[in-house]
């Protein structure tokens, strides 16, 4: 039980730091709430879909921006999608980056787009890292026989 308590504390600290530093927002909590007995793997499922989709989107974005003639509408579509999925999982910083990214798309500013692609990528890998850590912690708590504490 000692381990569970420790893990739980670690988990709470970690997730709080994520909130504090703005990696995650309330939407993640909402996600967690949607997870119940009938759907125990919900968060993991959603987050992994998010990872998969996002990596694909990032690849698409990168290749779109390397075209001779950049189709900004297409890029904008990708970014929009990315923004949607990131806001759904509560990856706030990615979302914010996406919002700014879209402005450059509107302006058809290739430099800005490239810069923001890197930023979005960076933010995404950061949050991915964090989320993976978070989920691993959850897993460990569960394995140790504890319950994941709910964050309000």
């Amino acid at each position, binding site marked *: 039980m000692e381990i569970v308590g420790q893990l739980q504390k670690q988990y709470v600290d970690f997730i709080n730091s994520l909130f504090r530093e703005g990696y995650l*927002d*309330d*939407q993640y*909590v*909402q*996600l967690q*709430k*949607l*997870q*119940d007995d*009938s*759907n125990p793997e*919900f968060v993991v*499922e*959603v987050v992994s*879909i*998010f990872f998969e*989709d996002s990596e694909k989107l990032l690849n698409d974005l990168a290749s779109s921006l390397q075209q001779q003639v950049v189709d900004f509408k297409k890029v904008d*579509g990708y970014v*929009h*999608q990315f923004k*949607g*999925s*990131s*806001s*759904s*999982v509560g990856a706030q910083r990615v979302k914010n980056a996406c919002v700014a990214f879209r402005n450059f798309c509107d302006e058809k500013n290739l430099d800005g787009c490239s810069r923001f692609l890197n930023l979005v990528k960076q933010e995404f890998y950061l949050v991915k890292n964090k989320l993976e850590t978070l989920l691993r912690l959850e897993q460990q708590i569960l394995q140790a026989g504890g319950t994941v504490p709910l964050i*309000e």
Partner: protein
Amino acid sequence: MSLFHAIGFGLKVGYQLFMLCCWFLSLISLNLLSNGGVMTTKTGWLGDGGRIWMKLWDLILESGCKFHHHYSQYIGSKKVRKNWWRKLLWAWIVFWILASIWVFWYMNSQAYEKRKEALASMCDERARMLQDQFNVSMNHLQAMSVLISTFHHGKNPSAIDQNTFARYTERTAFERPLTSGVAYAVRVLHSEREQFETEQGWTIKRMDNVEQTPVHEDEYDPADLEPSPVHEEYAPVIFAQDTIAHVISVDVLSGKEDRENVLRARELGKGVLTAPFPLLKTNRLGVILTFAVYKSDLPPYVTPIERIQATAGYLGGVFDIESLVEKLLQQLASKQTILVNVYDTTNISHPISMYGSNTSPDGLHHICALNFGDPFRRHEMHCRFKQKPPWPWVAITTSIFILVIALLMGQIFHATMNRIAKVEDDYHKMMELKKRAEAADVAKSQFLATVSHEIRTPMNGVLGMLQMLMDTDLDETQQDYVRTARDSGKALVSLMNEVLDQAKIESGKLELEAVCFDLRGILDDVLSLFSGKLQEKGVELAVYISDKVPEILVGDPGRFRQIITNLMGNSIKFTEKGHIFVTVHLVEEVAESMVVETESPSSGTLSGLPVADRRRSWEGFRIFNQEGSTTSLSSSLTDQINLIVSVEDTGQGIPFEAQSRVFTPFMQVGPSITRTHGGTGIGLSISKCLVHLMKGEIGFVSSPQIGSTFTFTAVFTTGCSGLNDQKSQQINNQPSPISSEFQGMRALLVDPTPVRAQVSKYHIQRLGIHVEVIHDLNNIEVGNTIIDMVFIEQEVWHKDLGLSTLVANKLNRTNCKVTTPKVFLLSNAIRSTRANFSASGVSTPFVIMKPLRASMLAASLQRAMGVGNRVNYRNGESLSNLLRGRKILVVDDNRVNLRVAAGALKKYGADVVNAERGKEAISLLTPPHHFDACFMDIQMPEMDGFEATKRIRDVELSINNRLQRGELSLEAYKNVSNWHVPILAMTADVIQATNEACQKCGMDGYVSKPFEAEQLYREVSRFLRTESNEDSWEGFSD
């Protein structure tokens, strides 16, 4: 736009000016030309000129029209027009320069013509006169020749001698105005010479060499002349006028000129003229007219030889042209104006000047032919003006005048053009600025949308948590706190909406709902929203709604609430003591009371402090000023409810100078107000707009340091249909404030202030409790009636603690047989209450915090009287009720979003099917299908939500039509004849998802992403309930 108008106006003015100038110019020119026409007596010209000008005028008009045309055509393209203008200007200037030159030339030539004609007429006149006089002289000479032939040759001895001749000629000299002398030479043959010479006593002398050696007059002596040499015949002068007596005895035939003359005269039988030659003795230029005198009358047709034979002598008249013409011209006036030259032009190449000085022949001159009766000789008269022609000042001034006018007009044009160009530049600048301002406006709205969205998300968290907290088992106070917290949170959200509203109002996009709502409930909500604040301040807040106002009204509760909130919020800001009192009446009621005018305004206020006379706040309202409108209002529109709402406060009031701009957006009384009280200053302007949308009016009265009263009217309707009734519940999803558990109870209310008593009574009565009001504790009469509760104003209670105790005891004692009446204190401020209670030794009665409102009152009573806790209706549960077992299609291209949305819906028990594409959704939703609803993302690649919905609706429509026509069997379509699956849009963008956009493509509504339970519930319940209202309704009616 107004700028555009200004340009148009400027142009118009310019054009009018242009027309005026043209008119003026044409008038001047016409005048000038018509004058000229009269002078030159060319009558036809005037018409011509007029016609020309009319044509020109037409041309100008046409060009004006063209100009207009061009203007409208090129209004967009500045440069083209500018060039066009410039060209026009240059053309104008060049045209008028040419025109003025032409005018100058024309007038000058006219003057020249005139001068020429004057000269001609003068010249002609002189020539005619000269000729006439010459003819007269000639005729007389001819007569004299007859005289001589008759009296000299016809008589023998001759009747004429030199003396007779001289005397006669002298006396008849006036008859021959041009002759200076007359002489008669007789024809003498050589054979007769000697006899003749002896007869006369002198020898015939020759004259030819005399001419070559001109001598002085005085020295001239005929005797010095040489005798004539021998010739075949001679023509010695025998008679002569005295003036030329020196020629007697001179042989005329010896002179070269005379000889020719004489020979020609006798041949022709007419007067002939010599070429001008210097006369004998005087040596002046002269001509000699010679007539032949015949011996006998000649028949009309005789040969020249016969004439020669018949010649007896020659009569010569000397014309001293020079002096004679001089004399003649002197007789005529205006000799000084013209110079006259007379020439003998028999030999055209060498005209011989007979008269006149030899001036240079340049300049204007006129030539008149002179006929002196000698066909052999030709004479001409040349006339010219002495002076040079004067400068044509009229022409010069006229043309310069025209030019100046034209240039001035050009200047006007130029100025206008520049002005227009400037205005246009300004206009473009303004357009640019406008564009930028609009862009800024768009940015502002976007910013607002973003901010509101961003604030909504955390607020949803707060509100959701509060909602959940309310679901837990709380005691009444806690529940009230939570509700207040939640309501305040909602108010914050609504504040955000307010900012959005301002933007919407500004763009005229705001529309009002028409749903059923409970006015009292709304006011309770507002009250609870503000109660916390006011309790701290100790300001009393109260609401009174007239009994005549119906329970349920149809209108826009949100907006109504917004107005009330704004007004109250405003009042609260500026009120530190006293009260804020909201009253709702029917307009009819107020109008009646106004007519009766019974109540004095100062009869008492809620807190006893003076207030502004609220009636003055609606003085300006149309509804009261219409003559006899009140009766017609109430009778004609039966289901129309005219509410009049007043918010009265005892705050610091509005300074008079600021009262005029109270309803102007972002205007506050002063910067210090903003600093001390905060706020945006748009609340009142929004309120005003909203009131106008509700067909009402808003007004206020305010006295500084006394308070303000805002009053507005609004038009609602009654008569909720059943469906609307349900709608009203979802908006107002609170427990029905009037609960039946207190129905029929009796209560006693102790309050000395009638107004306050009325308010308290109103609230208590809402719970179904019968209320009796007394003004004093002493008056408590506990009779036979059973009293369940006693409400006592706090101030009454504390005024006299002893009495209070007594009364409490009395109450306890008397009613012990049934139930002790509960004593409640109606209190305003928390602190004072507590303090006083600690001091008092009596059993503490329950304290009910003001402001009174039905729900809170009921809760307090429940707690005090131990009536069982009611099970609160919960959103989550009802959502589950609604969604459990429903088959719902969620369409979103974003897998993450899809998964989350599906998860949320699943949580409420729905059976969720996912689709990632619009096309998939179309195929899934093609009837027959089992879906109860569909949530669709709007922004999707390939096919967006709007498009997909449109297609689904199309498919549904065609199937419905075919089903109706019986082309498809109903069995195959589950006996549903009208397929319409509810489709809700999911969107993260609040602005984009306007209702109309959704409805336009057949969507039933929209929910924001991520899902918000309340909104989700509201939207879903709209269409899912109809199918299962039995069970889902359970939640409300328990």
